[in-house]
């Protein structure tokens, strides 16, 4: 057993987390270093860029959430009286496009990753700070194109842009939306490139690979997916734009092209993209759980290897989106078994977190509540993914509400809850202020309950056979749909709460100490908010990560 010893120069705060740290004899923190608008929009400080991302993705989350609310409103009645079919189709398309490409994919990496990776590995910034700023501008340019397509009248192809509907049949603004999504891909690539190089080259003395926090490991794995999968969707989208603008014919059966080829290229990216959303969330939870159990993460090396392993295997399962699309049966079987091979190891991560809590010293503060909610929802999402990977079940529930429920459990239950948990965990670090704990707990409960009431009925709807993307649906499904819509109102309230009290805390919250949670990790050794150049002197890392007071003695090759 080793007790936690603080490293770096700000270690004082570790011992008494509730003493406000002295703020006078310090260089200005990154928030107060400069005040001009220019100092924000032309900043190369990874922490400020992270906040730029945070503001933009929050705006997109609001757009995505409002359209989701309208979709749920429409589905209260079965006969499609609320909107026209076209409007409904545009609403769910905007919801999907905005949530997937402009919220979920950048959510944790571009905000927390940007802010925390240099702090966690003891670097002064990312390797390429200007590139980092450029990637935000690239992101906003892509977003602008997509918003233009929405303002002009919207898109109705679904976020998956399947051909030939998207190329030859849709009469909506497909090309600007596609250009937007293509550009955003480059933003992801640049972010991933920056992370990979930073993690490889910028680690502080003593920060060996197996002293990296799991958060850094999962972001490393995510960055590899950014680098290896994003270019494939970029080229698929370029071909799609060319197809729609010049009728080049590659996806057009009229000329002998193959519409299913697009699905292959699309899912070759978009299945790994699920892990772009999931892995960073796992990283966040792997930081929160040990901090609030005051105990070392169970099976650190396994979790680290698993992140890399998952990121690799996930490239070989894209075909499970096409079991009923005329793919060869043998290919389907191979994709099915590989999907089992990737889903089970991700789901059993939950055992690691449970084992971490075992015999810990638990504080059930807001981040921990979110983390526990995450574990519950993620398990359900992961296991229903196994149902979908089972060929015979997939034949029935493919493209029904079962799928909708499944991926919302993964994406909302997984990514959004981890995002909110991380936001509460690191908010004091970001802003130097504490939020009001009671409100945080209430919102965590509301979101957990609201989410389940919204999406659990959709599993049943799907098994009953209600297809997804249906504006008009058979009346026998109305009860469950109303239940789901009712749940979404609870969920909405749960989302609004943090937006209010977290923003309120920026100005009126109690000042946060450097380490309010008594957590380990280099980011907690610097002041809250951190100084502009992160570390006043270069930190040295003498010990393993998760150096908490309670250490299970693990045999095997855990302590190397």
């Amino acid at each position, binding site marked *: 057993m080793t007790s936690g010893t603080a490293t770096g120069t700000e270690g004082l705060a570790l011992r008494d987390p509730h003493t406000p740290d002295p703020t006078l004899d310090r260089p200005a923190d990154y928030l107060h270093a400069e005040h001009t608008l220019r100092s924000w929009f032309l900043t190369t400080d990874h922490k400020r860029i992270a906040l730029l991302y945070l503001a933009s993705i929050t705006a997109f989350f609001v757009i995505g959430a409002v359209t989701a609310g309208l979709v749920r409103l429409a589905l209260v009645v079965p006969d499609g009286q609320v909107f026209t079919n076209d409007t409904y189709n545009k609403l769910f398309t905007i919801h999907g496009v905005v949530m997937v490409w402009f919220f979920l994919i950048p959510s944790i990496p571009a905000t927390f990753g940007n802010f925390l990776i240099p702090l966690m590995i003891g670097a002064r910034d990312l390797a390429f700070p200007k590139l980092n700023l450029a990637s935000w501008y690239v992101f906003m340019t892509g977003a602008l194109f997509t918003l233009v397509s929405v303002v002009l009248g919207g898109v109705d192809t679904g976020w998956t842009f399947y051909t030939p509907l998207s190329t030859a049949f849709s009469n909506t603004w497909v090309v600007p939306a596609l250009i937007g999504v293509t550009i955003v891909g480059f933003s992801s690539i640049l972010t991933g490139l920056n992370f990979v190089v930073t993690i490889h080259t910028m680690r502080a003395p003593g920060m060996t690979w197996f002293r990296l926090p799991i958060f850094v490991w999962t972001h490393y794995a995510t960055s590899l997916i950014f680098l290896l999968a994003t270019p494939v969707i970029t080229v698929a989208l370029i071909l799609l734009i060319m197809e729609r603008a010049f009728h080049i014919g590659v996806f057009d059966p009229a000329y002998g092209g193959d519409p299913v080829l697009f699905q292959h290229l699309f899912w070759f990216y978009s299945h790994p993209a699920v892990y772009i959303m999931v892995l960073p969330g796992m990283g966040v939870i792997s930081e929160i759980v040990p901090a609030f159990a005051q105990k070392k993460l169970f099976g650190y090396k396994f979790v680290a290897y698993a992140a890399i392993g998952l990121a690799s295997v996930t490239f070989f399962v894209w075909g499970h989106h096409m079991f009923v699309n005329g793919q060869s049966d043998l290919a389907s079987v191979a994709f099915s078994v590989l999907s089992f091979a990737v889903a089970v190891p991700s789901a059993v991560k939950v055992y690691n977190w449970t084992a971490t809590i075992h015999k810990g010293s638990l504080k059930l503060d807001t981040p921990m509540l979110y983390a526990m909610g995450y574990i519950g929802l993620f*398990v359900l999402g992961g*296991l229903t993914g196994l149902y979908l990977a089972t060929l015979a079940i997939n034949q029935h529930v493919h*493209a029904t509400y079962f799928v909708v429920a499944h991926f919302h459990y993964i994406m909302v239950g997984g990514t959004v809850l981890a995002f909110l948990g991380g936001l509460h965990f690191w908010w004091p670090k970001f802003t130097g202020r504490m939020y009001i704990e009671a409100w945080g707990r209430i919102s965590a409960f509301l979101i957990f309950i609201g989410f389940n009431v919204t999406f659990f009925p959709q599993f049943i709807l799907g098994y009953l056979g209600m297809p997804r993307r249906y504006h008009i649906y058979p009346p026998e499904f109305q009860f469950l749909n109303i239940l789901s819509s009712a749940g979404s109102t609870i969920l909405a309230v749960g989302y609004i709460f943090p937006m209010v009290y977290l923003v309120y805390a920026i100005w009126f919250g109690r000042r946060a100490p450097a380490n309010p949670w008594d957590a380990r990790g280099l980011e907690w050794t610097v002041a809250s908010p951190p100084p502009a150049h992160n570390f006043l002197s270069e930190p040295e890392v003498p010990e393993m990560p998760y150096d908490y007071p309670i250490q299970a003695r693990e045999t095997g090759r855990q302590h190397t």
Partner: protein
Amino acid sequence: MNPTDLALQLWPPSASATAAETDWLILAFTVLTLLLTVPVFVAITWFAIRYRQGAPANRDQSESRSVLIEISWMLIPFLLTLIFFVWGARLFFISKAAPADALVIEAIGRQWMWKFQHPTGQSEINDLHLPIGQPVKIRMTSQDVIHALYLPVLRMQMATLPDRYTELWFKADRSGTFRLYCSEYCGTDHSKMDGNLTLMSQADYAAWLQNGQALQGGLAGAGRAVYESYACGTCHDPGAVVRAPSLAGLYGREVRLADGRTVPADEAYLREKILNPNRLKLAADYKQVMPAFRNVIPADDLDRLVAYLKSAGAQAQQEAVP
């Protein structure tokens, strides 16, 4: 049983041995997942209470063989779930190997209707009548975008692709009326691309083939689907952006033509105006913009469309829309 009779159902009806086995598969899988997860949920809750900060509890950390633990809790669930992979793959292969004596139905998906053709030549729109106790194979293709034929009661679906044929087969064992859907998003009226699957005894099926049209409300009901599928309403519905003559009450009325003649809008007139709208120009002040449907609309669809225009339903629906 009419599918709309069920106000709230929690388990869907099934009508084939494969469908029943799929249900068993998912139930058994659910049992396994509960075995794997309920302990976790119980443990998390229990630990949260027992080991909360300040609570007196034994926090002695015993030696734990973490490598062994890790490998076992990764491998054991994986191997257990593989049972379901094999079971699912077996069912999948059964559903792929159609017997040689299967009744072959040709299905065509188009925006936004289904057309099914029986081996004896009869065809129907959106609704499908099939016999039970006999293997049925549906061979399908699409005329435009990708659709998917989904028959929940048989726990089956298959995409229809524009450039090739796909198929699914089953042997139904229970009669009744159930839903069928398009499950692959296909544009504006995707959610209207559904219908009823009626499973009936072989004797009833034979009788239906003899007298089919009467059973399903005549050609006119199917004609409404044709009317929507060819987007006639984009111009002809009241309030449409492109102003075209209203079709309400047209059948049987006298129409004045540009050359001064007055002709009755009989069946021959309706057919001629659909196939070749530039002939027989109307006297009224309309721009002649309608495309010719000769070689576009198949003869049987034209029959349905004309039947719809002749029917009282068309008159009512056209007038009901404000």
